[in-house]
């Protein structure tokens, strides 16, 4: 049964031409066709609308002179002196007498948390996927798969809650770091949200590898681990890479876990045990109090637009790799 996922069952669906006018129900048919096509179009339109409306609110950062006076590109990306004569520094402090909008601490924070989460999640999820598809006895598979489904079903606010109330306490008791909520705590929580997607895509990729690949390898005298490591893993590589990319995309955009467990301090530091503030958490924490139309408001949408474009690109890349894997293996099988 292992190879049953080789070729998804796809019956050939070739729509027949519509009956000629005058047949019963033709008016209903036309109306239904219009509505159904309209819905499909609306789906595409909604993605475009997201792009347009986030972009529209983000654009003043680049175009409006009024917004640029406070939050132009220089203020976002270059070090700024808060008042003449002071040292130039990178600070994110949008609500203060002299608002400071440096994105660098946020960028570094996002990067830190995401990398920690991905470093924990990818080995665990890919390893687990390899085990379930290559080594696991049937009963173990029956436990692991539902467990992943359960994990995928846990709302992120619950993971954030657990991270804040329990994991943070354990880590703090064990290591006694200065900040109870830090990048590492949030990264661990975030990895819980990333594991299901990486596991699912990687497992799909492994089960896509045609059974004859394995049989050939075993027939040549390779052991099951040699087959797994030297035949199955390389064959499924594009799918595994796609899993990593999609997992990264999920981690960058995830909001509630980092909002609750990262400490939310926009500090410019490389230490994994300092508090951090990520892009997504910044939007979530500040959009509620912001004055609509203010520079701060537009900067938050600017962050949103960045997140949207980044995850969009990662998704395209991931899906492209998955498609390539399917083509490659279907050609080979």
């Amino acid at each position, binding site marked *: 049964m292992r190879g*049953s996922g080789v070729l998804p*069952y796809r*019956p050939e669906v*070739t*729509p027949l031409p*519509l*009956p000629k006018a005058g*047949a019963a129900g033709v008016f209903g*048919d036309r109306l*239904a*066709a219009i509505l*159904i*096509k309209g*819905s499909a179009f609306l*789906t*595409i339109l909604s*993605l475009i609308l*997201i792009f347009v*409306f*986030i972009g*529209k609110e983000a654009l003043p950062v680049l175009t409006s002179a009024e917004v640029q006076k406070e939050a132009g590109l220089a203020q976002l990306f270059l070090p700024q002196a808060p008042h003449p004569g002071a040292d130039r520094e990178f600070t994110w402090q949008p609500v203060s007498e002299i608002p400071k909008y440096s994105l660098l601490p946020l960028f570094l924070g996002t990067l830190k948390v995401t990398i920690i989460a991905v470093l924990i999640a990818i080995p*665990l*999820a890919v*390893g*687990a996927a*390899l*085990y379930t598809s290559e*080594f*696991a006895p049937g009963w*173990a598979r029956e436990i*692991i798969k539902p*467990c*992943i*489904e*359960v*994990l995928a*079903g846990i*709302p*992120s*606010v*619950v*993971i954030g809650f657990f991270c804040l*109330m329990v994991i943070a306490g354990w880590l703090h008791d064990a290591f006694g770091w200065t900040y109870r909520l830090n990048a590492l705590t949030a990264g661990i929580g975030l990895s*819980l949200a990333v594991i299901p997607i990486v596991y699912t895509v990687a497992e799909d990729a492994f089960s896509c590898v045609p059974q004859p690949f394995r049989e050939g390898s075993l027939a040549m005298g390779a052991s099951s681990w040699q087959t*797994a*490591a030297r035949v199955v893993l390389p064959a499924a590589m594009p799918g595994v890479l796609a899993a990593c990319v999609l997992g990264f*995309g999920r981690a*960058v*955009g*995830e*909001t*509630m876990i980092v909002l609750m467990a990262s400490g939310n301090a926009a500090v410019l530091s490389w230490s994994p045990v300092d508090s951090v503030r990520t892009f*997504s958490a910044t939007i*979530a924490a500040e*959009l*509620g109090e912001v004055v609509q139309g203010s520079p701060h408001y537009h900067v938050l949408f600017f962050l*949103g637009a960045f997140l949207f474009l980044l995850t969009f690109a990662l*998704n*395209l890349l991931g*899906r492209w790799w998955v498609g390539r894997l399917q083509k490659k293996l279907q050609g080979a099988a």
Partner: protein
Amino acid sequence: MIEKTKIIGISLQTLTATACLIIVSMVAIIIGNIVEHGAARFSWAFLSQAPRVGMTEGGIFPAIFGTAALVILMTIAVIPLGVATAVYMHEYAPRRSRMVHVVRLAIQNLAGVPAIVFGLFGVGFFIEFIGRGLDRGLYGGRLVYGQPAILWAALTMALLTLPTVVVATEEALRAIPQSYREVAYALGATRWQMIRRIVLPQAVGGILTGGILAVSRGSGEVAPVMFTGAAYFLPELPTRLNNQFMEMGYHVYVMTTQSPDVEATKPILYTTVLVLLMLTFLLNFTAIMIRARIRNRLRYGR
């Protein structure tokens, strides 16, 4: 040589098995911890009362009601749109046409957009653009729809859950044998008659799965509704489309991070999390059961 091969083999198997074990035990720890701390306060009164004494006493009824109202509105919006999109891709468009490719790409990318970006979109599009536009056009600039409201939260959530519904429906459509369609055509049915009488009744299971998964996702997601309608604390239940509402996930977030006295709210907080978890698990479990039946049918081609 053989010895070395064996050792590497065993260690690789142990390593990957350990990865599985870690994941499984993490899930067990999370659920065990929440059940252990949350079960004590769980009662009918908890589900049916409003929060009292600064959320340290009473229950979470307004949050349950608000979540239910939200997901019902969301379902009304997402099911027709999602089912029609899936029907278009599978029944209407010529196979492998460019349009199907673009729709599928849009769905996949929609599924990858971070929840918080949906929240921003809800503010920028539904509240500021549509809501304000309605107020200007119909209410002479009076503030009616140009503010956070359950309607806007539900529509934002509908967009977020659209891919779930489309994917589940498409899977169900794929499971319907082609011969059913051919028989309908042979009897002289038009395409829409065939879809309405043959395809849709057969696909009910898949549509249901998609709807349930969407509800499960919608009732736990917080980021999209934070700014589009969820309220911090609101004892009145929402009765109009432009009312604000309490949501369970948001309630958990608020109690966890903004409570003045964490120790006092902790028991209630745990029980709220338990209720939220039970709700999503129950929904997911039902959906998985229905999906398993569809997959069996797909495999054996009934």
